[in-house]
């Protein structure tokens, strides 16, 4: 019997050994862990930029989309003739300087959706610490602009509160850039076509506007604009979170009605 036991043991050990050897003889890849950053109050711009660059290209995963010519606005060289991000950041949104704009687009990217792109970027404060966020801002500023991030930003504004606080401000700032009563203009100003398709333009993130009036009532449209979380159209449940809930504050009553009527008439 001991012989049988030995044989069984040999078979088991042998099989396990073969698997281990085979697994060890193929390419060995390990996952990358982003470095934790901690800066003192007197951190230099260079340090921040260097850390931001490492994040941008490495574990931050930014370069996957924002690298040279990919799924998102090009930040490093030029975007449609507007220059590097450091150059154009201050001009992007009125009322937000470069630093604020960059930080806000990191923590609430969908509110600052650049037209022509699909809102796929996640809130980076979910994955990055405030040190890391500010380092990224510094790096982006350094792309053609002046680095104004300091240790004070990280200490005073930094962290979760700042991200939370920045959000509404960002949204407001991005808000009623148009006082027009033309529904198309209103929709353009509010980047509705960033997620909805209308007449072949726009991105199919949310329900199409084509023929929307035939599918739902005006009330439903109004309700969906004012309180998008109330319910999603079939097939778009996954994206319900992407629809900003702030249009009720941004649009005047007349504007809202104009849009609702316009859409309801699109049968």
């Amino acid at each position, binding site marked *: 019997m001991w012989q049988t036991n030995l044989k069984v043991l040999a078979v088991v050990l042998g099989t396990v050994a073969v698997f281990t050897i085979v697994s060890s003889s193929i*390419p060995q890849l390990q996952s990358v862990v982003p470095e934790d950053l901690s800066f003192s109050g007197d951190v230099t711009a260079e340090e921040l930029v260097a850390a931001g660059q490492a994040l941008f290209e490495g574990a931050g995963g930014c370069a*996957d989309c924002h690298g*040279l010519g*990919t*799924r998102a606005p090009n930040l490093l060289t*030029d*975007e*449609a003739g507007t220059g590097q991000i450091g150059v154009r950041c201050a001009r992007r949104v009125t009322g937000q300087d470069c630093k604020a704009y960059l930080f806000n687009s990191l923590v609430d990217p969908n509110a600052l959706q650049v037209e022509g792109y699909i809102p796929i970027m996640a809130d980076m404060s979910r994955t990055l610490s405030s040190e890391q966020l500010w380092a990224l801002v510094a790096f982006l500023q350094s792309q053609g602009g002046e680095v104004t991030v300091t240790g004070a930003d990280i200490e005073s504004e930094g962290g979760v509160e700042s991200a939370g606080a920045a959000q509404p401000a960002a949204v407001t700032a991005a808000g009623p850039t148009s006082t027009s009563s033309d529904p198309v203009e209103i929709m353009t100003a509010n980047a509705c076509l960033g997620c909805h398709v209308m007449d072949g333009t726009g991105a199919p993130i949310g329900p199409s506007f084509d023929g929307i009036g035939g599918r739902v009532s005006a009330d439903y449209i109004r309700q969906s604009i004012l309180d998008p979380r109330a319910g999603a159209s079939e097939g778009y449940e996954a994206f319900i979170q992407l629809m900003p809930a702030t249009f009720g504050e941004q649009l005047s009553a007349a504007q809202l009605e104009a849009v609702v009527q316009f859409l309801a008439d699109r049968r």
Partner: protein
Amino acid sequence: MGKHLRHPLGQSVTVLVAAYLLIKFGIVYLPPLIGIASAPLPSSVVLQYMITVIVGLLLWVSDNEERWAKFKQPMHRVMVDPEQKVARAVLLLATPLLVAFVTFDRVRPSVAAPVSFRSIHPAPPGQIDFQGRTLRLTGLENPLRSRGSEDEHLEEGKRIYYQNCVACHGDGLAGLGHYSQGFNPVPLSFQDVGTIAQLTESVVFWRIAKGGPGLPNEGGPWNSAMPAWEDFLSEDDIWAVIMFLYEQAGHSPRTWGEEPGEEGGH
């Protein structure tokens, strides 16, 4: 001979040798006979195939009692037969020596370069920034195919290819230009059915325009010697050279509706 071939041991050895010849040489030399390109296999793959074949043979000889007994008999005889003393001694010595040598070969410090795993066709981005403009690659067709004279475009493409690409990709489009030996990875062969024949023209455009530096990380951009041709060539130049590539290599590009790169992974 015939006797040996009827014996499971002889049959196994024959199959093993035949399989080895087929894998080592057959795969290399047979497909070209019917006009399919082939190349020598890396030793890792040969080993993998041979192990599979050996396992298969072991299963075959042992899945039937009679065959198994017959198979073992010669080996058993070597072990016990007084007349096989010499063979036994030789085996007893040679096997450990072989094992020792293999062990030595494995444990001695090796100075092999790290093997690089590089995806030749990483997934293309949806759009690129070409000379300051945004080009959407998805659905992008070669505009020259529907404009002007094809012969002229090909002529122009040929000029561009010969003045810029020949040094690496070679006159034969097989990646064997006179500078090819200087680079690792070697320049791509367009003759290979796995390269441009698999791609849409827009992907080729992306690769030409952005070159090595524009590769995503899985493409090993630090190793690629492919220049970013947008610095040298105009958009029409690139489209023309793409037309020439397909024409000269005798491939036709993939058409849209196919998503290239979907078959990566394993």
